[in-house]
């Protein structure tokens, strides 16, 4: 049996944090939104990271399958990316004029992303999804936006729902929420709101939380593409989460269509702080005329890191190897579950897989299993998709499956 982690220091730090920071740790990395159940099983604060591993403040090491919720695609502290960033840092980062690294990075994205004729940079995924919606409205002179239920496009008011704290009706009154893969509903919405729909925005497949991830139905994307074109509606792909883990040329390319606007962040620079909106030529003039910027958006270090990251992803054919590693892990986990009579469902693309033990619809059994994995050094979360990074080794996968096996045995004994 493996050692069970102790989190004394994490708890102490959290108590300090809660005194001076709203909710202690806010957002997706916080224990509430992160669905840490039970709380005792999870670390709160990191000390360091390298490759596929993170160490918490108590010195516990984890094989990390959250990858900072996506940014870590090559491995934490990748030497090539870090070297490029360090070289640029010596020259300068946040300067009165932008560095020409910005041009290099934009050219690289235009050459890499199939649907891109230009690139616009910001800092977070939310910056560029918001830009995409604003650009769609500016171009079409329309208001309404189609979303697919289970979406996550950031935290700006337009992305939230009417019952969220701080949101008013006017923020969301032009949102149309449809079921994923329901093209009939898309057609009906276009008919009902003829000439009013500015954009359809969607992740490349449904990787919402709390439920199995769902790929697009056959020809779904092609039909959505066609109806958008016919109606003069802008098609926006939010590739912030899946970007470069499915297809280096963009997740729209993976599914055989072209978005008008495509949003990247997370894996774009292996953890350096940059996001990008890429788009078609016909929208470039519209975007040029928009007032949209930020204090650090043109900083040079993340551009240099992004260039090194994308070049390395291309060189190693990252999506292919991430999918292969994910498939190995998936098979190992499913077999470990079967050994104890559990039906572990692994959905979504293997490079960003979602886990659920299907034997208990309340998900409490699943939460118990995840907790036992985390306590033994494999960092999974309960109800979010996971991420594979390129530094993950066969030994890491083997160790993960061994820990998962032990965690299954613990819950089996507990409930038998």
């Amino acid at each position, binding site marked *: 049996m493996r050692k069970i982690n102790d989190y004394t220091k994490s708890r102490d730090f*959290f*108590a300090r944090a809660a005194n001076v920071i709203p909710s*202690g*740790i806010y957002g997706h990395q916080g224990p*509430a*939104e992160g669905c840490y159940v039970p709380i005792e099983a999870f670390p*709160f604060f990191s000390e360091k990271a390298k490759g596929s591993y993170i160490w918490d403040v108590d010195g516990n090491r984890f094989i990390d399958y959250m990858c900072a919720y996506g940014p870590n695609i090559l491995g934490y502290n990748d030497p090539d990316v870090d070297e490029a960033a360090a070289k640029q840092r010596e020259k300068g980062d946040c300067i009165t004029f932008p560095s020409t690294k910005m041009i290099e990075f934009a050219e690289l994205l235009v050459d890499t992303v199939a649907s891109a004729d230009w690139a616009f940079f910001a800092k977070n995924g939310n910056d560029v999804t918001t830009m995409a919606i604003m650009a769609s409205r500016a171009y079409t002179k329309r208001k309404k936006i189609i979303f697919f239920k289970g979406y996550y496009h950031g935290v700006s008011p337009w992305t939230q729902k009417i019952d969220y704290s701080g949101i008013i009706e006017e923020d969301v009154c032009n949102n149309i929420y449809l079921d994923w893969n329901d093209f009939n509903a898309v057609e009906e919405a276009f008919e009902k709101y003829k000439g009013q729909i500015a954009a359809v925005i969607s992740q490349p497949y449904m990787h919402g*939380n709390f439920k199995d991830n769902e790929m697009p139905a056959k020809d779904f994307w092609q039909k959505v593409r066609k109806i958008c074109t016919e109606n003069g509606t802008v098609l926006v792909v939010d590739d912030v989460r899946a970007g470069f883990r499915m297809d280096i040329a963009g997740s729209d390319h993976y599914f055989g269509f072209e978005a008008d606007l495509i949003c990247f962040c997370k894996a774009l620079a292996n953890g350096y702080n940059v996001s990008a909106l890429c788009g078609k030529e016909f929208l470039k003039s519209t975007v040029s005329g928009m007032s949209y910027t930020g204090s650090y958006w043109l900083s040079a270090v993340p551009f240099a890191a992004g260039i090194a990251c994308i070049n390395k992803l291309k060189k190693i054919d990252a999506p292919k190897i991430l999918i292969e590693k994910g498939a190995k892990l998936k098979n190992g986990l499913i077999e470990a579950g079967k050994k104890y009579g559990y039906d572990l469902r692994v959905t979504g693309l293997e490079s960003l897989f979602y886990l659920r033990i299907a034997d208990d619809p*309340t998900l*409490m059994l699943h939460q118990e299993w995840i907790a036992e994995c985390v306590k033994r050094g494999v960092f999974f979360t309960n109800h979010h998709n996971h991420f594979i990074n390129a530094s993950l080794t066969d030994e890491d996968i083997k160790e993960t499956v061994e820990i998962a096996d032990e965690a299954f045995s613990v819950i089996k004994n507990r409930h038998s």
Partner: protein
Amino acid sequence: MKDQKTLAYINMFAILGSIPKLCKECKEARDLIKDDKISLGFSVKNGPQATLVFDKGSCYMVEGVKKCNIKLCFSTCEKFNGMIDGTVTPIPRKGLLKVMFLLKKFMPLTDILSKYLRATEEDLKDKEFFNISTLVMFNVITEAMAQIGNHDRVGKASASYITDGNVKIEITGSESAYITAKDHILTAYHTTPDTFTSYMSFESIELARDLFDGKVNAVAAVGLGQVRVGGMISMVDNVNRILDRVSYYLA
């Protein structure tokens, strides 16, 4: 602006609906009705209808006004809400002779309820008062959540995302309730469920009180292990969004 119909449902089933809990927990309330065997119906046009049945020291509420000794009719939700906030005086349509019950028993009973629901910091220093006040408030809040989920436009949006099942809400070692969701219609039950799909537990009655009074944030409390959630957490998330609306109506 508060939706008057939603407020009427809250006033009927959460505020007046907590009188049975008050009578159970509070001797002063129980003693007031210890000799009474009578039923008091409230009928709101285009709104809720319910009857409080008093039976010699105990009390319960049933939906509808078919069998009641005294019936109070309100032509609008606003007028019913006015009775609750003290700006409208109710006049019984049926059983006029029993007006004395209204004046001598029901009104004093609602005064006791107000005392516990609008407790001062000084009142709460008394442990027994604190406990009664918090348990009655727990009853009011859990019921109000169901009414908001069924009637308030924003609450209904939250309910539309709740999958079928039971959300258990408990004060550890003290009180339990649960909200059942079925086809996005919510029903509150003021007892421990046999089974539940998700749960939200407060570690103590003191913590529950601080959460109700807005002195503690539930998200921070989760990190500190003071509030525990589990199971189908998306249900808890959406129930919590409705919980946020309770103070909007009851503040």
